């Protein structure tokens, strides 16, 4: 947040992002190339799941980023409502679709993975369901921030929603976990949690770092665009 304080002024942010973006983009592409090599070629197929295990290298980091993204939205919402940082609104507007995108990637890769593994695209497992609800929270945020003529009103309404949503996320997660354990689900094959072999763990962490960079890159790019658009609209209005 301290950094955001410094960057709260859109113009200053603009100068900062212009300086950082090229190298960030370069780093992302480079890491992606290496990561894809590690994930698709170097790492061994799983003895149980075969090559489908490679979906995991995208699936798991997407899940992490989707969850982190909502926390980011809440933080931005707070800084908009409390400190009235103009940049926070633009950044929230820019990052919500990115977070929703990673959430969708997690759901889609999970569904594609589920077909060979569980014989169904979708089962009502607790983890899947809470991810789906997170996706809905994202959708609500995006829809609300666009539902007004005056973008400022949408920004503030969405900020309130993000704050309430982030308080509720643990409650939702808890209740869904509880819900599913009550009705014994059709038992789900899953990799043992922590006992992942290093040959898989290293590419996984690498891909997580890569996708994190991608997330940052997309948010910065989209924030830039939002600043431009807001300026253009204001210029039109003044005319």
């Amino acid at each position, binding site marked *: 947040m301290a950094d955001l304080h410094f960057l709260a002024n859109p113009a200053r942010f603009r100068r900062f992002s212009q300086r950082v973006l090229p190298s960030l983009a370069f780093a992302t592409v480079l890491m992606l190339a290496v990561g894809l090599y590690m994930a698709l070629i170097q790492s061994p197929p799983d003895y149980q799941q075969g090559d489908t295990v490679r979906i995991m290298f995208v699936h798991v980091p997407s899940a992490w980023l989707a969850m982190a993204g909502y926390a980011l939205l809440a933080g931005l919402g707070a800084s908009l409502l409390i400190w009235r940082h103009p940049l926070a609104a633009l950044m929230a507007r820019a990052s919500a679709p990115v977070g929703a995108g990673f959430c969708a990637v997690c759901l889609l890769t999970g569904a594609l993975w589920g077909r060979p593994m569980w014989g169904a695209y979708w089962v009502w497992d607790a983890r899947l369901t809470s991810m789906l609800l997170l996706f809905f929270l994202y959708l609500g945020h995006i829809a609300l921030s666009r539902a007004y*003529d*005056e973008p400022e009103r949408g920004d503030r309404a969405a900020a309130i929603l993000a704050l309430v949503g982030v308080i509720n996320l643990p409650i939702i997660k808890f209740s869904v976990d509880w819900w599913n354990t009550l009705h014994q689900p059709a038992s789900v094959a899953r990799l043992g949690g922590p006992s992942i072999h290093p040959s898989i763990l290293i590419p996984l962490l690498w891909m997580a770092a890569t996708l994190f960079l991608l997330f940052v890159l997309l948010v910065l790019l989209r924030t830039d665009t939002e600043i431009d658009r807001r300026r253009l*609209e*204001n210029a039109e*209005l*003044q005319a």
Partner: protein
Amino acid sequence: MASFPLEVADLACRRGGRKVFERLSFTLGSGELLALVGRNGSGKTTLLRALALLVRPEAGSIHWQGKDVRAEPEAWRGRLAWLGHLEGLKGDLTVAENLLAAERLRGAPPAENRLDSALVAFDLPPLAARPVRTLSAGQRRRTALARVVLTQAPLWLLDEPLNALDAPAQSAFRTALKKHLAAGGLAIAATHADLGVPGRTLELA
């Protein structure tokens, strides 16, 4: 120190990204009326809403008896009587019920005799038991004006109070306004017509 109850300094407002007015300053003393005039879209309604803290001004300050009103917004709101473009009446409630409900919403105890005199002031007794939905435009406006009188607030904020009123209702309004001013009240009214009550004028451009 402050000799004027209401002091507005350097107020600036934007709507939808457009600057509506800026560096607007004025003071208003007890018993004074300020008429806001200006072309359509010059910002009269916006100014009234900013004074009521319904719109957040971009810059400037509003002081009541030397204190910034934003420090204690609830006390400030207690000092205001509001009449907007929209009357704020419930069509399903009768005239009397609407007035009583509005009073109770302000936390004031319902006062039957005050209600009666407010109704009489605007010639409303024959309509008191009618649902507002069945009133004509001017009858609704009169009901809203009766609510303003009932409020007993020191500062009236009125947006085009004469709209839709017939001649007798207009003079009833003038009488009520004069009484309010004579009792030391303040009033700010946006208008296109002549209010017919002596007062200062602020022209928005």
